[in-house]
């Protein structure tokens, strides 16, 4: 009963007090340690006292050298001797990016327009130095390689072990990246228990096959594992009430602390394969390999098929296992099946088997020797090249019963296309096509696109040519029109000058008038009558009076010419001069 009463009273306090609980506001900054290594994470707590308003987030200063991960925000309410103390705690995790001594803070909180600053803390970050005897803590990553010295393309096993004494989650692994190194995971990670320096650890082990494609001294950088670490909360209750609450397992749930653990760097010396004893047809295989073969059945009828099966298996760079080829056999047709490669990684590295099959169809009876197939490889264990070959096989062929089938297999030369069963083309093997080796491939690099200036020139030149042609024509037309206008302008002057100079016959005057009309109105008439002249003047805006007078004068002129007075002098009359001047004024 008493216990129930206490619980109800506590709940009531929590519900009712927040509104009244307020006091002087202050901010404090705390670190859970003053010294850390590069792989540690440091808990930073910013406590805001005097308010339970969690909306005012602190601003953290001078943390450029750390990766900051916000964690939890918790409100606090405490009553000690009737004094109400409330606040909000903001928790962050800092992961150092470099070594040195750093001043952390101050944290700033702005509440109701006023900014409050916290104290500062000093944090020293040092390199992770762990001696073999020292306690490596609840979590560490260990890396090892099966051999510190290897040949090019030889497989080395790279093992990573994560030792832990606490719960972890969200594990992600970053393997060291370097040119010429190739990692292949060997099976799934395994978990087991192990003892290290007298302490029991849960170990997560993952293995990789490491193949280096070029000789040299390699420094394998540390592998890094990012994870969340859950450590049991070490809480010291400050009051009996708090003790009551925090004894409950619900409140002892911890939030994960982000961590990065790094393994130690490793050295690997990679030496080239020896040139001495290297076979001319060396396949590039490095490791230990065997070859097996079988021919089934060993006796067949002509036209029936036997199967030659070759198994190339071993341990090493199994991806390089070549596709073997059976040379062409006289009077035997060969049908190769698609080779299959089965890779079985285990704790010792990559192992695999390549299975190659051929169907042999003999055309005639007889005893056939199947040639042996060879593969060369380098065995690092004995430091020498080895050649392995299949067993010798003989195929005995007895006369066939069905001649028709035999004929159809021989092909169109003997049997024609009649009766041949068409088959789907079956893909026997898969591989890439070879490299391009023509010297022209080098030149192709230069013939793609011209330079920017040349490109513009190529594109714009036709446009410019068109514009030039267009403008040229326009200018030419304009110059013709201008010369006609000039001619028209000068027509009256030329007429009057010649007319006033006197001495003109009637025919010459008629010719002069025709020239005047041609020049003045841009015409090219060979002859003109008085009626035509009147029409030309009227159509060019000359008044009817002037037109009529001109027609009359021109008619008299024509009469004089056609009555035989053409060669007689005509004299100069002021009326014609005045009439021309009037036409000049009125004509358009």
């Amino acid at each position, binding site marked *: 009963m008493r216990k129930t009463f206490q619980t109800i009273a506590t709940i009531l306090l929590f519900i009712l007090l927040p509104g009244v609980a307020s006091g002087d506001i202050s901010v404090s900054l705390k670190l859970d340690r003053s010294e850390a290594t590069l792989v540690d994470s440091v808990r930073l707590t910013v406590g805001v006292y005097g308010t339970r308003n969690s909306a005012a987030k602190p601003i953290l200063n001078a943390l450029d050298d750390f990766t900051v991960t916000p964690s939890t925000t918790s409100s606090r309410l405490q009553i000690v001797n009737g004094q109400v103390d409330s606040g909000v705690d903001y928790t962050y995790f800092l992961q150092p990016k470099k070594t040195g001594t750093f001043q952390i803070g101050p944290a700033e909180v702005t509440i109701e327009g006023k900014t409050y600053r916290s104290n500062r803390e000093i944090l020293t970050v040092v390199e992770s130095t762990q001696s073999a005897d020292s306690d490596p803590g609840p979590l560490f990553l260990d890396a090892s390689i099966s051999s510190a010295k290897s040949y090019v393309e030889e497989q080395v096993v790279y093992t990573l072990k994560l030792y832990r004494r606490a719960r972890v989650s969200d594990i992600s692994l970053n393997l060291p990246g370097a040119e010429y190194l190739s990692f292949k995971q060997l099976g799934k990670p395994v978990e087991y228990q192990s003892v290290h320096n007298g302490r029991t650890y849960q170990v997560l082990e993952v293995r990789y096959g490491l193949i280096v494609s070029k000789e040299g001294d390699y420094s394998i950088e540390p592998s890094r594992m990012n994870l969340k670490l859950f450590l049991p909360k070490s809480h010291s209750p400050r009051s009996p009430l708090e003790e009551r609450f925090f004894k409950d397992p619900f409140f002892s749930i911890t939030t994960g602390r982000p961590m990065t653990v790094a393994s130690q760097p490793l050295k690997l010396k990679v030496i080239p394969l020896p040139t001495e004893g290297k076979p001319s047809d060396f396949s590039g295989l490095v490791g230990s390999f065997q070859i097996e073969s079988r021919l089934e059945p060993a006796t067949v009828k002509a036209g029936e098929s036997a199967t030659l099966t070759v198994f190339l298996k071993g341990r090493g760079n199994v991806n390089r296992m070549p596709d073997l080829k059976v040379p062409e056999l006289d009077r035997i047709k060969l049908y190769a099946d698609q080779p299959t490669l089965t890779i079985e990684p285990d704790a010792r590295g990559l192992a695999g088997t390549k299975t190659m099959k051929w169907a042999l169809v003999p055309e005639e009876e007889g005893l056939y020797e199947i040639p042996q197939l060879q593969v060369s490889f380098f065995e690092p264990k004995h430091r020498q090249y080895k050649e392995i070959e299949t067993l010798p096989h003989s195929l005995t062929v007895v006369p066939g019963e069905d001649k028709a089938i035999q004929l159809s297999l021989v092909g169109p030369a003997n049997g024609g296309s009649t009766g041949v069963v068409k088959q789907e083309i079956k893909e026997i093997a898969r591989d*890439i096509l070879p490299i391009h080796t023509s010297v022209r491939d080098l030149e192709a690099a230069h013939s793609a696109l011209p330079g920017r200036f040349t490109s513009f020139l190529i594109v714009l030149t036709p446009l410019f040519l068109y514009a030039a042609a267009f403008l040229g024509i326009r200018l030419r037309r304009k110059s013709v029109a201008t010369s006609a206008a000039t001619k028209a302008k000068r027509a009256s002057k030329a007429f009057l000058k010649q007319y006033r100079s006197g001495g003109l016959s009637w025919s010459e005057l008629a010719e002069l008038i025709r020239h005047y009309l041609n020049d003045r109105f841009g015409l090219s008439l060979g002859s003109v009558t008085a009626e035509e002249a009147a029409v030309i003047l009227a159509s060019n805006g000359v008044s009817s009076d002037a037109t009529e007078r001109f027609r009359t004068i021109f008619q008299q002129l024509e009469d004089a010419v056609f009555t035989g007075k053409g060669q007689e002098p005509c004299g100069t009359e002021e009326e014609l001069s005045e009439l021309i001047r009037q036409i000049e004024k009125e004509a358009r």
Partner: protein
Amino acid sequence: MRRLICLILVALCFPLAVGMAAEHEHWEEVYFQANQAYKEGRFQEAIDGYRQLIQSGHGSGHIYYNVGNGYIRLNQLGKAILNYERARLLLPRDADLDFNLRYARDHIRDKVPEVRNTMSIIFFWLRSLTLGDLFWAFAVLNALFWGILCLRIFYRSEWTYYLILTILTVWLITGLSLGLKWYRLALDDRAVIVPEEVNVLAGPDVNDTVLFKLHEGTLVHCERSEDGWVLVRFQDGKRGWVQADGIENIRI
């Protein structure tokens, strides 16, 4: 005097021509050695030789193709696909390249959905043409178009009218294709995952949540980069941050 000037010019040009020929021979030698190394199974040496050629400005599509072959032999699918894709920018109609790229893609671990946008469907021919092909086609049509316009200044007839309409249509389509191709190449944001496996995170920080994992050879689109991290988009719309050294851009 004229003969003397000619002699001086020849004397000046001769060493230059000899020097150029010697340099060309040097690169040919590098090329032959790389080819030989490939044939003898020294694939890393072959790749190093081809890379030298690329760095010296001899990076034709064929050289990128050969580099891709070298990486396939070294079982490095990511780098192989990266170089095949680069080769495809320069050799879009090479049958060998198509075959080998398909082979490499068949071996990647991530299932990549086939996504083709509307523009790719309309301008389907862009995949098979290089920028150079389109430029030269446009240059020829451009010359034809303006040439026939010139002809029409002097000689106007019905057939030139219809010819000019036809050429104008093809000229516009080619010009549009050229512009689109240039735009695509200039803003090519495709990249290839190079390591065997990379974590794609929710933010540019190692402590962020791992959203999913991508494997070598998978094609992604880069959206932006930030402090050694790149925001990538996978074909099906998934997005996340990867470390910049985990991907390599296809753009040459």
